[in-house]
């Protein structure tokens, strides 16, 4: 049972993070298309935002198994 719960939890985390990454990519692409001269600045901010969203998924991956007593 714990294995199934773990899978569902990580899947839900992946779902949320996927939506978040998509939103960041969407708005960054829109901004780049509207202002091509700001591409270099937008890329930097976009990568930093991507890193912060990705961290949420990584934290979930490391914390969910830990709380279920099955840490690696």
């Amino acid at each position, binding site marked *: 049972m714990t294995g199934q719960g773990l899978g569902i939890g990580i899947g839900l985390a992946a779902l949320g993070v996927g939506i978040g990454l998509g939103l960041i990519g969407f708005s960054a692409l829109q901004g780049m298309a509207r202002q091509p001269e700001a591409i*270099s600045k937008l890329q*930097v901010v976009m*990568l*930093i935002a*991507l*890193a912060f969203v*990705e*961290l949420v998924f*990584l*934290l979930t*991956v*490391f914390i969910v198994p830990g709380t279920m007593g099955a840490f690696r």
Partner: protein
Amino acid sequence: MLYTGLVVAIVFATLSVAMGNVRSAQKSGTPVFRKLFGGLFEQVYLFVHQMCTGTIGPHGRKYVPMILTVWLIIFVSNAVALFMPTSPTADLSFTLAMALMCVGYVQWEGIRAHGLIGHLKHFAGPKLPPAMFIVTMMIFVIEMISEVMKNVSLSLRLFGNIEGGHLAVTSMNQLGEAFYVPAGALILMPIKLMTVIVQAMIFTMLTCVYLALVTGNEDEH
């Protein structure tokens, strides 16, 4: 341990060949970019230089050596992950050591720029009237916690991406075993190549951002 030694050897060899190129170019009077290796390495230097001056500002030139060292070590360690069964950055102790070093350096630079009292004031948020002293204390505590959590986030991001890439490639390979196709190596390796570059860039860029936050002039904002 073996792979860490490999990374150190690669970084040391790269740097010594590049420096040798630069010295011989200086002696003979030809431009550095005419030399093959010097020209290649100049691009790496310019990339890091642009990242520093773009994020930190005009005084970011001072931090180029530190950032370049961190970038080289992380990039080479990540690139080792593409060829070897494991890599230094797939080890939490290595990434945590890198993160502790970078965040500690940021504190040191903050103290050097504003003095110890000024650096601690930086954590206390904006200036509030004396009646709001308790709010300032709460902001201070929260900022301290977030400063410590910077270590965790920096190290866990790098470790999770590289180790997760390894696990994903291994399980994809197991899926393709029935058809004798190394599916992970074929499909996931290009994605891992991007991860290698982006993660090295994100680590150094976040260090740059922390440096910019700490050493920024009070007059500017």
